[in-house]
């Protein structure tokens, strides 16, 4: 997995709540059997006027010029700033893949949907939860000046802006450790191989029907 340590970047303000995974990446792109190439279809229905298909040349499609992702001034942002319950809806990890593939490394919001959040951690995308007031502040700053930047440091769990205002955020120790080191969770789990086997043997005795041939 990709590791994450720190970043300094401008922010892209997506001022809507309950942004669902269907909006992040619409259904037709889920037909891909790959993990890559979704960035061009991030927020596809909001970004383009005409409908798109997997594998087509998207550079020819008509843009919704006023959609924030299409605005020149936010082109380099690596931090996506969003509202509450970001990533609700389906479990499609394609949502996280498309955000990463587009070039974001951090999403800041007042809250995230559970499955989306766990998908972030598995891919090295850092979801940061700040309170409503702090998120409001960040929106105000970015809207006033698109070149406004923040510094994010995972180890010290801090977001700091160019006015030296800083916000600390919470993250599970284990998640942090995996992200900082880019660890593969499967490897970590397989360190407990004998425990899993032991559990399974016990289960065969107590609930044998779970293992009866289908």
């Amino acid at each position: 997995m990709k590791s994450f340590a720190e970043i300094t970047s401008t922010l892209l303000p997506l001022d809507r709540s309950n942004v669902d995974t269907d909006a992040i990446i619409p259904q037709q792109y889920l037909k891909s059997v790959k993990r890559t190439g979704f960035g061009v279809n991030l927020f596809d229905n909001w970004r383009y006027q005409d409908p798109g298909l997997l594998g087509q040349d998207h550079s020819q499609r008509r843009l919704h010029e006023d959609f924030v992702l299409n605005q020149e001034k936010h082109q380099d942002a690596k931090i996506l700033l969003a509202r509450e319950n970001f990533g609700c809806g389906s479990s499609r990890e394609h949502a996280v893949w498309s955000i990463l593939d587009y070039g974001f490394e951090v999403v800041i919001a007042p809250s995230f949907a559970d499955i989306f959040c766990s998908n972030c951690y598995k891919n090295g995308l850092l979801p940061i939860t700040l309170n409503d007031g702090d998120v409001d502040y960040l929106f105000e700053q970015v809207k006033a000046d698109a070149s406004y930047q923040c510094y994010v440091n995972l180890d010290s769990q801090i977001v700091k802006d160019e006015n030296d205002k800083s916000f600390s955020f919470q993250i599970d120790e284990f998640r942090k450790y995996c992200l900082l080191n880019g660890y593969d969770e499967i490897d970590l789990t397989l360190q407990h191989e004998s425990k899993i086997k032991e559990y399974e043997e016990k289960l065969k005795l107590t609930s044998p029907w779970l293992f009866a041939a289908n």
Partner: protein
Amino acid sequence: MQNKTLYDKVWQNHVVHERDDGMSLIYIDRHLVHEVTSPQAFEGLRLAKRDLWRKDSILATVDHNIPTTDRSAGIDDVISKTQVDTLDQNCKDYSLTQFSMLDARQGIVHVIGPEQGASLPGMTIVCGDSHTSTHGALGALAFGIGTSEVEHVLATQCLLMKKSKNMLVKINGQCQSGVTAKDIVLAIIGKLGTAGANGHTIEFAGSAIRALSVEGRMTVCNMSIEAGGRAGMIAVDDATIEYIAGRPFSPKNEHWELAVKQWRMLNSDEGAHFDSEIDINADELQPQVTWGTSPEMVADVNGSVPDNVSDDQRRALQYMDLQPGTSISDIKVDKVFIGSCTNSRIEDLREAANIIQDRKLASNIKLAMVVPGSGLIKQQAEQEGLDIVFKAAGFEWREPGCSMCLGMNADQLEPGERCASTSNRNFEGRQGKGGRTHLVSPVMAAAAAVHGHFVDVRRYL
């Protein structure tokens, strides 16, 4: 011993290892697999040269991409076909149990799990799909996972996670005739909001839940995720055990006796602690219709779209092309979809057919379709003559799959079209770019098909 909730019990039974910070390794009993969220997981497994941990825990099927029209000639859409073929190939390579497109047992993954007896009480059940919460209706801990987690379960039979909080949603009283499981869950979401149960496992309880059939309970648990709850659960009772008995994958003989004994304990202890609790009175519930682009934007059929709207609601109404204050019964629909893992089981079809019987589609309905949840449900419905009832009214009778619930196949709304749909999500573009979705129960969808706009189905009953 501390009093435990149903969720506490099932969780505790599956902890393989717990770290000091609470991060736990949880054993997974059943892994359901479909074509959309699995190819990258199998690919990851191959790249890392890892083997599958436990093949007999897996049941696979195709549902999202497949056509609902004649399938004998295969799939026209090359990209969809690739995804379906990839699952077929993976199942072949790893010798997994799969119901492929032409198998009568094929269907929507959340319909076939319980139907086959592959989803059982007390199990941990996962699938790369958020509506895995459906299976919680049987007293299982069932939740959706992402593709990396699919790979993790394939490789280790476990997941790394923290225990969530407990929420109790109690629906007391009794629903009036014509008010269904779908209306209960839409009302719950309306009350909780789409993020109301984030970080929680919901237990649904109360007399109105007890009175539901197991299929109705699945409808309720199915939409837990629409309130933000990754899992929804319902305690085991006689109805649960009766439902499971005799299904192909259910325990047999002496295993059955042993299993039932354990399942009987799958309920919350008296006085168990819930982190939050809400009560709903079923007596007062009316049929529900969503008017916006989030399932929480819902109203009584005799009510109207709100007058005073927030920014999000205004944006939703714009997308839906509705004015604030519009009466729900004034909303005309173009298409009707009866199907999805929420409402495509035999009882749903029976109830809808009952409304349609000897009636015709309203003239403004461009298309009305019924998509059974599985091949076996389709067969059953045909034996009962339900297909005849639907077809006589002007409905199309299709092959099983996800279909217009998300429009990955050809079944989609055109931009601007408005649909009465028994599915679970009314997000922008969910049923096709620019399409407008109103979520309703099967009987409400049937009544809308007959009238061409929403009507209170209770007037038929």
